[in-house]
C-alpha cells in the first residue's frame, strides 16, 4: 500500500507462497447453486436471500452491491461458512463447503480489533489461533504493517489509531495467513468519505499485487465498480442478482477511473436498478 522500496508481490509471495494451484485455476473459487436463506417460521417467516446461482472465478474481484436489507451480508456469511444456507449448495475450490476455512479471510465493517492487544498482536491473531509457525508469521505481519504504513504503530493499542489505520490493521490481520479468498463485508462502511476513497484505492493495488480472489459486499456503487472485475447488483429482499456486469476498465485503477465513460455507464445501469423496485 503506502511504502516505497517494498514490492508487495515480492514481499508477500516469497517463501511463504503456495500460490494458486494450477489445477485450481479453472475451478471457481466459489460456486453457489440454488442458495436460499430464510429466517423464522410462521408469521415471522422471512426469505432473506435467493434463490442464487453464482460462480466467482479464481483470481477475480467480484463486487456485490445492493440496498440495505437485501441479504448481501447474509450471502457473505454463507460463503464464509459462518452460517448455513436453508437450501442449495456451496462449493469452494471444487470442494463442498463445511464451515470456515484457513484459506478464507474476512474483513468486517467494524475493524474488530481486540482493544486489549497491540496492533501487532491483533495482526498475529490468525497465526496464534491457527497455530501457524511464529517466526515467519511475525515476519509477514511486519511486512504487511510496513506496506500499510503501520510499522511504527505495531506496539500501539488500537484506540490510539485513527479509523482508517484501524481498518488497515484489520486488512493486515486478514492477509496474515495468505488466504486464497478474501471476503470484504462493507470494509469501508465505518469510515469517512476521504479515508474511504484512499483505502479502497490502496486495496485495489494490494489486491492486484496479491492475485487472490476477492468478494466485496457494499452499498456504494462507485466503490463496487472501482474495485471490481465484475459487479453484481442485488434486488431487494429476497436478495437475488438482478444485474451482472463485467467491469472492463483498465488496471491499475485510480481516481480518474471514475471519469471513464464506461464507469459512468455501468454506474447509471446499476443506479437505475437500485432505485427502481423489481416488477414481477
Amino acid at each position, binding site marked *: 500500500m503506502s511504502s516505497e522500496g517494498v514490492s508487495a508481490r515480492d514481499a508477500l509471495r516469497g517463501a511463504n507462497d503456495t500460490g494458486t494451484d494450477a489445477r485450481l485455476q479453472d475451478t471457481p473459487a466459489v460456486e453457489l447453486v440454488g442458495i436460499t436463506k430464510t429466517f423464522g417460521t410462521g408469521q415471522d417467516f422471512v426469505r432473506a436471500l435467493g434463490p442464487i446461482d453464482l460462480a466467482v472465478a479464481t483470481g477475480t474481484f467480484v463486487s456485490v452491491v445492493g440496498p440495505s436489507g437485501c441479504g448481501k451480508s447474509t450471502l457473505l*456469511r454463507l460463503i*464464509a*461458512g*459462518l452460517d448455513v444456507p436453508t437450501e442449495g449448495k456451496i462449493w469452494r475450490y471444487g470442494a463442498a463447503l463445511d*464451515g*470456515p*476455512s*484457513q484459506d*478464507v*479471510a*474476512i474483513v*468486517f465493517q*467494524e475493524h*474488530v480489533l*481486540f*482493544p*486489549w492487544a497491540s496492533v501487532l498482536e491483533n495482526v498475529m*491473531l*490468525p497465526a*496464534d*489461533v*491457527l497455530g501457524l509457525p511464529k517466526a515467519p508469521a511475525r515476519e509477514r505481519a511486519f511486512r504487511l504493517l510496513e506496506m500499510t504504513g503501520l510499522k511504527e504503530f505495531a506496539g500501539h*493499542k488500537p*484506540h490510539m489509531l485513527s479509523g482508517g489505520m484501524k481498518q488497515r490493521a484489520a486488512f493486515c490481520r486478514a492477509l496474515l495467513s495468505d488466504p486464497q479468498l478474501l471476503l470484504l463485508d462493507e470494509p469501508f462502511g465505518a469510515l469517512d468519505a476521504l479515508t474511504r476513497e484512499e483505502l479502497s484505492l490502496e486495496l485495489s493495488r494490494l489486491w492486484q499485487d496479491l492475485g487472490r480472489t476477492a468478494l466485496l459486499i457494499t452499498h456504494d456503487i462507485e466503490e463496487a465498480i472501482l474495485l471490481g472485475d465484475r459487479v453484481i447488483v442485488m434486488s431487494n429482499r429476497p436478495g437475488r442478482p438482478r444485474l451482472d456486469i463485467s467491469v472492463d476498465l483498465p488496471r491499475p485503477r485510480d481516481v480518474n477511473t471514475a471519469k471513464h465513460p464506461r464507469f459512468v455507464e455501468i454506474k447509471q445501469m446499476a443506479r437505475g436498478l437500485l432505485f427502481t423496485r423489481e416488477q414481477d
Partner: protein
Amino acid sequence: MTPLTYLALVLVWEAFVRAFSIPGWILPSPSAIAATAVTWAPELFFHSLVTVRETLIGFLLALVFSLPLAVVIAFTTTLRRLLYPILLGLQSIPKVALAPLVILWLGVGELPKIVIVVLVCFFPILVNVVAGFEAVPKAMLDLMHSLRASEMSIFRRLRIPIATPYLFTGCKVAITFAVIGAVIGEFVAAQEGLGYLILISSAQSQTALAFAAILLLTVISVVLFYGIEFLEKRLVTWSP
C-alpha cells in the same frame, strides 16, 4: 469534594457543638473524637484488624466460589437454565436478614461473619462476571469462528479479557457490601470487631468512641475500594 471542603465541614461541626453546648454523649465534637481515638488507639487497631480480616477472607472466598460457577453458568446451557433462576431468586433475599440465622448455626466466632461476607459478596461478582462472558461483541465471535477457533481458544483469547472489567465492577460493589456484612455479623453477636465496638460504646454512651470506630470503618471501606480500583487500572490498561 476537595480537602478544604472537608476541613470546612469539620470546623462547622466543631463550632456548632461548642456554640450550642451539645452534650458529648449526643454529638461529640471532632476534637473530642480525635482525643478519644488517641486514647483508645490500641483497642481500635485490634478491632479493625478483626473486621478487616473477616472482610478480606470473606471477599476472597466469594471470588473463589463465584468465578468457577460463573464459567459453568455461562457455558453450560442446561446448568444455566437450572441454576441461574435459583441463584437470582436467592439474590433477592436481603442477606443481612440471614445474619441471625448464620450466627445461630455457626456460633459467635469469626466464621459466621466470614460466611455473611461471602453471602453478600457472592452475587454481585457472579452476576457481573456472567454478564461479562456474554458481553462479547458478535463480530469478534464471527472473527474467531472464521479462524475455526475452539470454544477454549475463544474463552481464553476473547471472553476472559472482555469479562475482566466486569469482574472489577462486581468486585467494587462486593467489597463495599463486604464491610457492611462483617459489621452486621458483629452487631448480631460478637466479642470483637469494629461492629462490636460501635455496639458496646453506644450502649455505654461512649459516643466519641463509636464515632471513632465508624470513621475507621469508612476509611477501611474507602481503602479497600480504591485498592481494587488500583488493581483494575494496572490490569485493564485498554479502553474499549
